[in-house]
């Protein structure tokens, strides 16, 4: 590897700092100096004129599919996709096969991440055994394992039993854990296919009401307040959900939330052609929801962007809508989508993007080694991004094993140029290093 002499990144802009076109020196795995006239004999130089440097992005919500569905994704391919998207850490969701509900499985995923080396992999543990929503998984044992699990989620399924949810929230207080809830009332969404509204009525697809998400979020905020624990709300998709979270935060309750890139850009109108590439859980909502989610991310009600990268093999999507799998890939396009949805609209500046895609998700995920603003002494995780790269059509072919991107063919701005993990490039010139 080339890290020995370090890297001198010249001419870069660090959002949130006054000077433009400065230099960053990375050596020994850390940012060692920032300033206009740096020099460091032996360091390799990277001309980063016109680029911005963000602290390495952190994804709170990634499906790496391994173990069990290596046909859709592996830790190797998923983390490669993450690095190409500018991520230096991802949280691997627990709905694998076997489910990540024991110390053994979370340690396996953690080790696979270390071996792959494209970015850090922080396993998420299941809340309940087998995601079945009946018995708590051994949360403490996963917390104490080599994987040091702090985020627990049955994502893909909702912890719908209120008593079980209360106990989970309460129990993880012992080790500063957080329950990341997939908010979906199962009874209100039996057979549901598409946001309940004009499109579902017209297309004859069973409606997925906003209230199925909002009712669970409201309940869980109250439960988190009652037991004084930390709740994280996965993939918020409706205007009403944002409003409830804003209210819970105003009370001082420990509630955080994420929104996906696709819910910031796409609407249920796209289902008109019944192409299941637009089928996702929670479903794409309306223009009004998109507008409100953007506002909520801008004002901090929603803390962060999380991809919910959900790879599926071709055959899982080449079918009738109702037969098809839920989910979209997102790691390789997230930052470009956020530029389109948040930066070009003036809702968020690049310092805000660094906060919502690195600092805050790392804090929510208790990843102490990530999400540090770029200052001397910070870990050497950073992403170099060219926001001025002309908009190019997204191609489905990337590092991910799967091709189910809803953005295929869509022209998106920007380009991830390089990703550094512990001072070593994982991506250089837009390619895996």
């Amino acid at each position: 590897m080339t890290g020995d002499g370090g890297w001198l990144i010249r001419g870069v802009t660090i959002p949130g700092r006054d000077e433009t076109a400065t230099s960053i020196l990375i050596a020994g795995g850390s940012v060692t100096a920032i300033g206009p006239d740096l020099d460091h004999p032996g360091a390799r130089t990277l001309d980063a004129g016109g680029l911005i440097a963000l602290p390495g992005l952190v994804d709170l919500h990634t499906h790496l599919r391994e173990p069990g569905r290596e046909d859709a994704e592996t830790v190797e391919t998923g983390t490669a996709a993450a690095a190409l998207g500018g991520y230096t850490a991802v949280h691997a969701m627990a709905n694998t096969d076997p489910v990540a509900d024991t110390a053994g499985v979370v340690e396996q995923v953690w080790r696979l991440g270390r071996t792959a080396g494209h970015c850090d992999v922080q396993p998420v543990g299941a809340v309940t055994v087998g995601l079945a929503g009946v018995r708590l998984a051994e949360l403490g044992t996963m917390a104490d394992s080599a994987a040091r699990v702090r985020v627990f989620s049955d994502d893909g399924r909702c912890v719908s039993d209120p008593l079980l949810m209360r106990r989970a929230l309460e129990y993880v207080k012992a080790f500063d854990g957080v329950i990341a809830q997939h908010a979906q009332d199962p009874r209100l969404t039996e057979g549901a296919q598409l946001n309940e509204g004009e499109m579902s009525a017209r297309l004859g697809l069973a409606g997925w009401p906003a209230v199925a998400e909002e009712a669970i979020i409201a309940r869980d905020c109250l439960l988190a307040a009652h037991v004084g624990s930390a709740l994280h709300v996965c993939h918020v998709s409706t205007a009403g959900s944002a409003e409830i979270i804003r209210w819970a935060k105003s009370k001082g309750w420990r509630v955080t939330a994420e929104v996906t890139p696709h819910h910031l850009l796409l609407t249920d109108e796209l289902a008109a052609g019944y192409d299941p590439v637009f089928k996702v859980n929670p479903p794409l909502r309306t223009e009004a929801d998109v507008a409100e989610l953007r506002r909520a991310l801008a004002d901090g009600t929603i803390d962060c962007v999380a991809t919910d990268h959900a790879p599926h093999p071709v055959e899982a999507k080449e079918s009738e809508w109702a037969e098809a799998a839920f989910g979209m890939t997102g790691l390789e396009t997230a930052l470009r989508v956020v530029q389109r949805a948040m930066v070009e609209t003036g809702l968020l500046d690049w310092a805000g993007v660094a906060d919502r895609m690195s600092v805050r998700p790392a804090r929510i995920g208790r990843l102490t080694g990530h999400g540090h603003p770029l200052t001397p002494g910070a870990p050497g995780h950073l992403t170099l991004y060219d926001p001025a790269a002309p908009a190019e059509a997204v191609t489905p072919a990337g590092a991910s094993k799967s091709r189910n991107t809803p953005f295929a063919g869509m022209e998106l701005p920007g380009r991830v140029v390089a990703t550094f993990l512990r001072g070593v490039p994982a991506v250089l010139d837009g390619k895996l290093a």
Partner: protein
Amino acid sequence: MKRHLISAADLSRGDAVLILDTAEELASLADRPIKKLPTLRGRTVVNLFYEDSTRTRISFEAAAKRLSADVINFSAKGSSVAKGESLKDTALTLEAMGADAVIIRHGASGAAHRLADWVRGSVLNAGDGTHEHPTQALLDAFTIRRRLRGTAAAGARGAGLDGLRVTIVGDVLHSRVARSNVLLLSTLGAEVTLAAPPTLLPLAVGSWPCAVSYDLDSELSKSDVVMMLRVQQERMNAAYFPSVREYSRRYGLDAARMARLPGHAIVMHPGPMNRGVEIAAEVADSVRSTIVEQVANGVTTRMAVLYLLLGGTEFPATGEAR
């Protein structure tokens, strides 16, 4: 006309009137001793049925055969579909066999739309899940026009359904017949009202080109047409209504309700009926009922659709240019 018929929204008013007028011409053939026309000779029409629906399948089969097309019936049961073949692979198989048209009945909304992505021939939607059933709407429009505006001979050629008030009653939420009829009948100028319990209407029904009522009784005296939808008795298990008896009391068409219709009003049902639930036997068998006519009109309307979509040769019977 578009190449496929997937939604009633695919049809302009001109398209729809052309289909009805063509069906009128074809109807005149039905009275002849030899009912068959050579216009689709050598063309292959596939009936791809994933749901049991003998009445719709034989209606399309009769229509295609009367136009001299070769008909292949492909039923999901006992075929490779039962072994788990995907819709796409089935589509590619039909494509390889050179199907000029595929008539598809499927339990999933959007199946016809998906199929059209994978085959070159015309796709006719014969009912997809809870989405649409456009030829049912066409045969209903044809039936309404004949009964209330007269036959072509009586001057109905070129006419729409302007000003006619049509009340569609029952399980709109799950009904592909209702969706297609709302679209087509409004395109043809009719004023459509949906009468149903709120649980059986889509939440966003306000965006549809129709009025909505929860009270059937208040609609009867102003209806020229009452169209009853089949209600599945299992719906009460999902709390759409408390009991079949209560549903029938509030939304069933019995003799007393029928008596409050205007004298000229007709009663329709796409079949199969639940006698005693949404429609009383004496109503189904009354002179106002068009239920048997609808079946006969189904064949002629589907002939017209196949003829127009596949661009058959002229009818030797009329020789008119079109």
